[in-house]
């Protein structure tokens, strides 16, 4: 009995008709919609790690005020974190000194993808007044791919907040 069923099955073609590949355009579109929805739901928060690349401490003064109760970053979903391993955004302040070059690079490597790099202040943009010194690698872009720059010497907390909020909107897919 069994052998007869096996024999018959071998002679028959399958009942189901073959189909081609799924529509590529539709797949891409749906994938994008899903990603956008997830970004909109999950992307409204950024963890920030500040990296002092060898500046004068002026940008750090303003960044500390930005992190204080006066500007209350958490209401925007912005959070200062202790480790680059927890960060979405690296704020690089100061010119990158040659001595800090390697440490800045390793901090960036320790930050998980996807990540943003923001150059904070004139020094981090192109070395500022220290451009051309024997001890300077240059701005943050001498070491890292920079996504955004916030000008100023030092930039005020209000300017820093404006920049970070733009980043938040872009990150949320707007």
């Amino acid at each position: 009995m069994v052998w007869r069923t096996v024999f018959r099955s071998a002679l028959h073609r399958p009942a189901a008709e073959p189909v081609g590949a799924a529509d590529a355009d539709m797949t891409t579109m749906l994938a994008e919609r899903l990603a956008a929805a997830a970004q909109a739901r999950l992307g409204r928060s950024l963890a920030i790690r500040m990296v002092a690349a060898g500046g004068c401490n002026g940008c750090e003064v303003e960044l500390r005020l930005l992190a204080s109760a006066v500007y209350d970053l958490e209401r925007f979903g912005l959070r200062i974190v202790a480790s680059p391993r927890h960060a979405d955004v690296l704020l690089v302040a100061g010119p990158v000194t040659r001595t800090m070059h390697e440490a800045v690079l390793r901090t960036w490597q320790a930050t998980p993808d996807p990540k943003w790099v923001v150059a904070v202040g004139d020094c981090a943009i192109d070395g500022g007044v220290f451009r051309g010194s024997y001890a300077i690698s240059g701005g943050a872009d001498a070491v890292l791919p920079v996504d955004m720059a916030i000008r100023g010497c030092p930039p005020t907390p209000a300017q820093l907040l404006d920049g970070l909020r733009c980043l938040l909107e872009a990150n949320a897919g707007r």
Partner: protein
Amino acid sequence: MSAVSEAVRAGWTTPCHPWPRHVLDAAAWRAMAAALADAPGVDLIAQWADGQLVHALLHDRALGAMLPVSVPVDSGFYPTLSRARPAAAWFERMIRDLWGHHAEDGRDGRPWLDHGAWALHAPLSARPVAVSGQPEPPEFQAAEAAHLHQIPLGPVLSGIGEPAQMRLTAAGERVVRLEARLGYAHKGTLALMRGKSPRAAARFAARLAGDATVAHSIAFARAAETASGIAAPPRAVALRAVMLELERIASHLSDLALIADAAGFAPPGAPLARLRETLARTAAAALGHRLMMDAVLPGGVAADIAPDGAEAIRTAARQVAELLPVIRSLFAQTQSFAERLAGCGVLRPEFAAALAVGGVVGRASGRSADLRRDIAEPPYDTLLLGVPVRQEGDAAARARLRFEEIAASATLLPDLLAALPAGPLNVPLPPVGGEGIGWAEGARGDVWHWLRLEGGQIMAAFARDPGWLVWPALEAAAAGIAVADVPLCLASFGATVSGMDL
């Protein structure tokens, strides 16, 4: 006259303003070093170099005399001061890195600022050598006993702060030794200043330390003015004092916030930040910049105070005076927090005296030193200025002094504004040559600048940030504290990096 002063005055003098510089031969310098070993009344303020000379600035406290003194470098070597004065070891390491001069028989021959990554070797020497910088890992003292372990920290430290590397040697949870290695923020500032007019180089002085930009700018401007043989107009001098006191309040407020934060004590954070922000906004409205960067120029100040600026500063000072007692009671009356500060990071008075450390760190350890009183110049000469001193030398004493100094500056500000003289804001610097020393009492201690001009251009410069003495003091005080208290201790000493890294 002390033996040191006698030894110094044996040399011939060369013009330097306002104090002539004494040039000694190597034998006389050695005699001076020997006298320094047993001269508690003489402070070593700074040591630096220039061409073929190594300079030191001494302060004979008994005589009230500032003594700049030099020794020629002989085939790359000069006699050390670090056997007599421990603080000289850091200066001598820096002199070797920047000028290539070696201290003969120095206490510490390891590099300090140079990590091997610069494009030049001995960048300030007559003939710097180009090198392809391959950074070397810093060398720390080893842990000598089996029960000791080491904890590496930095150069990227947690929080929003400057780069520094520290190596803690610990026995369990106790710190046996804290050793710092700086140089990560070295930007080559002294080399950038050379060949420029003091006016053009002022922007580098203003960026030596962003949170002490006024103090460094004033010291630099004074050095340029004394070297050129001019004086800033009275209105500029008075406005500089207003800025200096505003900066002092702001810096102390920030440090208090950092101390509370390092101890995980949140309540004072919000009121301290609010006051700090009020001061920054007031400074921007009245004097043109939140940190007053570039507001002081050699020859005077960059701009006049805004028409309603004086009133804005008076209002801010009033707010500080009103809110300060509330914050102070949070510090004093929260038992758990007060107990963390008490006995944390004790700098013994004899160490403070040996290092000649100034500022809050020195005054909390029994050193009555304040340049506003010790070298009384307008406008401070007419003001009654108390210098509060404590003997305990712990974090609690330093916090207490910060509160007292904030309150004192808040009362000084209305007096300074009321006595603001009329007149010009700045005078041009003549294109002449000369040598000058300038100073200012910043929030973290005494700031010193030295300049040599030729034809109105800077030929050589040095800046001594208070950090040069605060870091060794921190190293001395950290022995014996709990590992968990290291951030608190760092905040309590207010140890900043950039001004010292040059």
